[in-house]
């Protein structure tokens, strides 16, 4: 699925958003992961997004696709966080599941 | 820049120096660069053209940042005239 880099970077940004105190306070969800863990998780998600983009689009176009989708994926996240922060961040979890799921399916097939 | 805000003619001089003089300085500098870079002529030309806008933008920003108008005008117009003169003296390579 070509959208994987987009979904994975959305999730990556959602993790970064969760590292900021203001957003942690705003969504007030219990059992949030530690900030350090979230940072590492975000870094992993972005690297996965890059590797998926290169896989799908080839080395040349892959980097363009990766940077483009990273830029774009933050837009819906910021819009969501501005209105419905919990939904916006939780959608990140969904994006991880769909993105990683598609990745694993691809790897298997 | 701040003092000249109150002074229309100084602001006009600065703006013209930044936009027109900045263009001339950027064009002259990259032309000289294209002429003297010790690589293939076509490649040197393309690199100079490609980088020109970055130089132009930097000159414009500096022209509005530096408060001493005389210094701005001197350096920008000086660069424009100096680099263009060098290019003309050297003449086309091919």
């Amino acid at each position, binding site marked *: 699925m070509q959208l994987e880099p987009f979904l994975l970077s959305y999730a990556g940004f959602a993790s970064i958003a969760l590292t900021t105190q203001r957003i942690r306070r705003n969504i007030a969800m219990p059992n949030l992961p530690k900030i350090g863990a979230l940072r590492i998780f975000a870094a992993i998600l972005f690297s996965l997004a890059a590797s998926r983009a290169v896989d799908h689009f080839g080395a040349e*176009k892959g980097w363009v696709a990766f940077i*483009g989708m990273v830029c774009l994926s933050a*837009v819906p996240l910021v819009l969501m966080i501005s209105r419905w922060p919990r939904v916006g961040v939780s959608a990140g979890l969904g994006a991880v599941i769909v993105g990683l799921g598609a990745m694993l399916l691809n790897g298997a097939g | 820049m701040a003092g000249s805000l109150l002074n229309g003619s100084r602001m006009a001089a600065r703006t013209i120096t930044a936009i027109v003089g900045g263009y001339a300085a950027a064009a002259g500098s990259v032309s000289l660069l294209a002429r003297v870079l010790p690589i*293939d002529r*076509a490649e*040197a*030309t393309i690199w100079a053209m490609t980088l020109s806008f970055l130089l132009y933008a930097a000159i414009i*920003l500096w022209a*509005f940042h530096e408060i001493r108008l005389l210094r701005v005008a001197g350096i920008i117009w000086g660069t424009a005239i100096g680099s263009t003169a060098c*290019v003309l003296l050297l003449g086309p390579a091919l």
Partner: protein
Amino acid sequence: MTKPQADTAPSVRQSMAWIHGWLGLIAGWILFAMFLTGTASYFRPEITRWMQPEIDLAQVAPAIAADTAVAHLQKVAPSAEQWFITLPDERTTATRIFIRDRPDPGPNAKPAPRRPEMRLDPKSGEEVTARETRGGEHFYRFHFQLQIPHPWGRWLAGLCAMAMLTAIISGVITHKRIFVDFFTLRWSKGQRSWLDAHNASAVLALPFHAMITYTGLITLVAMYMPWPIAANYKDPATFETAVFGAEPEEEYSGRFIPLTPVAPLVADASREWGGRPATMTVRNPNDATATITLFQSAKDRLNARGGSIVYSGVDGRRLSASPPPGPGAETAGVMLGLHMGNFAGPLLRWTYFFLGLTGTAMVGTGLVLWTVKRKRPNAAPFFGLRLAERLNLGAIACLPAGMAAFLLANRLLPASMPGRADIEVSIMFWTWFGLAAVACLRPIHRAWAETLALAAIAFLALPIVSVLTTTRGLPTSLQKGDWLFISFDLAMIATGALLGFAAWRAAQSAPAPVRQRKQASDAVQPLKEAADAA
């Protein structure tokens, strides 16, 4: 953007904020239009196809299209000086041909009259006719020529692009906490909200904004900055030959030799490139000196400047090819390719499109921010501020309405009307500027709501008018799975809905006497979406 004090030297950040604000404002209205129409241009062939619903062609392989085009040209202009053939692909389904006639020999002969471009069905080689329209080409041309006579439009566009570049650099320097503010977007907080929206749209897509601005300047670098060529070469043609390869220049001999079949050449070039040719020129067809040049398509790679191969038109021998690009030429070609995005498939194209809208939103929110920032609650706005407010309205709300009017005119003007292509264009500008002028009669906060609502209605009307005036309305295209028309109509509905939302937000702020001004500024809040919408 506080004005630095007169007696102290400003810090870099202060002076950068100052220049960011003024350059952004002065170039902003044109930049908004350039961004919006440029963003639409990512769908240039699709817009053209939607605007000529009569044309619905099946796709064929490039070699077949080349064959049918040559067969057609052999019938209509066998002894022309040059044929230009643009081969179809999955986005542009018709073959386009252009003929340059041989000028009469003799010293006082006038040049042959210019023939119009023609389009062919790639399968049959028959000419296809449809309603006259500029199509997506209009938005594309406008975004760098601004409908101003050559070369002034391009120079103005270039100046605005330079302003954009300096605004980006100064904006980055000004913005203190570039990554801390990343996720901050507060609604309904007046100036604060506009600043948030401007920061978010600018910072999130910063790589795109910087790339598209710089590469935009590069697309016309030969016009804007030709001086390095003059510094190295006595004759600019020498430079072009060194970079792009030599054009065949053999003189017409007058000795008839039939043109070699072209399909094998298309196959040969495709094999050599590992990609297909996009255009083909035939010089001196059916002559002993005939040559056929194939140019590589930009769809297969980032570098928009593909190579070219010259074949003999007599026996199909490979005569020469363009030199392999050096690192500089490759870089410039990739910059060009990044700007135009021709390499992008559907998903990347939509990515480009939405990033373009982010850029449009950045310019739009920046413009509004400039005025909101200068409003004082208990003072009448000064003349410059009122002017800026009206120009903002004219650019941000009235241009989308004008674009919708252009598309509506395409559906409502009779298909066979003479000169309709130009009338469509005029309708766009009359609507755009007319609406901006009429809106001046209304108080500013009402004017925002009303013009945005009009634009929304115009976009929502498009799919309805399409059903009534063509055979490819939404119900039919849904039935047939005609994805181009489905997506186009849905995009118009989405745009209309977004503009409607913006209008609703603008109208919501009922003007109470005391808080009037504050709320008027709140009213224009959702313009970011308005910008997004179009």
